[in-house]
């Protein structure tokens, strides 16, 4: 009997044993639970649980992720650093000085070159993958110990994998009182030393990247090209 109620046919049973009239023709039942738009207690409580769980998870994860990542994405603040008097950088020589980086382990150095009446400062971070390059006075060239990157005296790539020349630091000459004597007009020309007194202070500032014609660009990370198709890989 229960089965014949289900399909609503009068008189039939599934086994085919009886085919007479049904003793009781059931009324069609209207049940709200059959209506997909009707919000039952179960549906409502499931929704409440999902929303509450989502809010609780977000309340934990958002501060945690921000705490872990936000400060790491801040840019490094760069400021002018006094590197000593001009007499410390003899004419025609390249002098290696430690630049006050955030951590001593990073071995951040600048190669300050005084030649052709101008000062330039090259960062020792290899443009390939960030190893510290060393300067060889004999060949007047820079070499990276990690993957054989080789640079000439102005930091241009002469061999190995680096995609761009060595990065430069901004450099300027000021008086002891802090007044500018000369600034760096272009990376190729450098900071002119003509007429500067021997006790003028050499200041090193924000680094920047250069292309192979020594045209300045914003500072790029190691391995990034500043020109060509590959320079569009890092749009932000």
């Amino acid at each position, binding site marked *: 009997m229960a089965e014949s109620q289900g*399909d609503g*046919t009068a008189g*039939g*049973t*599934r086994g*085919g044993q009886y*085919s007479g009239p049904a003793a009781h023709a059931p009324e069609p039942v209207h049940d709200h639970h059959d209506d997909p738009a009707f919000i039952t207690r179960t549906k409502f409580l499931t929704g409440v649980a999902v929303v509450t769980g989502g809010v609780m998870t977000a309340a934990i994860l958002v501060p945690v992720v921000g705490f*872990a*990542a936000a*400060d*790491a*994405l*801040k*840019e*490094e603040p760069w400021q002018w650093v006094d590197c000593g008097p001009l007499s410390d950088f003899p004419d025609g020589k390249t002098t290696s000085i430690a630049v006050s*980086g*955030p*951590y001593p*382990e*990073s071995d*951040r150095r600048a190669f300050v070159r005084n030649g052709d009446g101008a000062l330039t400062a090259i960062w020792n971070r290899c443009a390939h*993958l*960030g*190893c*510290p390059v060393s300067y060889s006075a004999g060949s007047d060239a820079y070499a990276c110990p*990690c993957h054989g990157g080789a640079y000439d005296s102005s930091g241009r790539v002469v061999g190995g994998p680096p995609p761009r020349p060595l990065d430069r630091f901004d450099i300027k000459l000021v008086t002891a009182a802090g007044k500018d004597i000369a600034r760096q007009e272009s990376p190729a020309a450098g900071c002119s030393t003509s007429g500067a007194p021997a006790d003028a202070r050499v200041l090193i500032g924000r680094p920047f990247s250069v292309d192979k014609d020594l045209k300045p660009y914003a500072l790029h*990370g*190691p*391995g*990034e090209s500043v020109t060509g198709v590959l320079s569009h*890989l*890092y*749009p*932000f």
Partner: protein
Amino acid sequence: MATTNIGPKNPAVKAGEAALDYVDQRTGVTTGAKWFLFRNIPAETSWFQTLGFTAMALFGMQAITGIILAMYYKPDPNSAYQSIDTITNDVTWGFLVRGMHKWGASAMIVIVFLHMGRVFFFGSYKYPRELTWVTGAILLIMTMFMGLTGYLLVWDQKAYWATVVAVNITASAPIIGPYIADILRAGPEFGPQTLSRFYSIHMLVIPGGMATFIGLHMFLVAKLGIAEPPYSKRRMAVERSEEEARRAAENERLPYGRREVPASTPQPVKAEGRS
């Protein structure tokens, strides 16, 4: 069991069985262990299929030795190298535990790749085991990341610059690479924050993820069973009979896969059909 009942049991055995019964009645742990361990496996299962367990055993060894090493290691740039020197040269068996951790790490990379090669060449990644492969690939990435983060913790020149290079390689990924590198090294430059960050990732973040995914991986292996090797006699017999059926179908000059549909079997008549 009833056929081997030859008299009263040893009271100690009885007490043990009672304790096991007590736990099993409340947790079903015996049923679960039997489901997990006493499975049917293909006849040709061989030493090749033990590589996965080897990788898991190495993970266990790395976990245990790593927990002990963390009791002596100091994740601070001024004392990290010194503390490792102390572990290696002063602490009793420190050289041994550190050596197990160091060589176990290399062995784990080797074994994990051999395991992946076995799965690949046996075709064990095919239906229905695709998700076992995917969880295994995630485990591989996490294993490599463990290698990267653990390498820095020694904090000598080789560790430092090798990790600088590795993170700069990460930074060279297009678009998001520089951001991932900044988050990894906690800023634009390697420093004390980087060391403690790598230490936390190495001993808390990734091991938790690895334990989770090893659990999922093992569940899938137990649920789906071990795949038949391609040289299995049964498998080859199936393939041979399939090949024979294909040839026979060709001989009948019927295109393969379009054989004549056999006469349909009579369907049971529905109740409405009767009157």
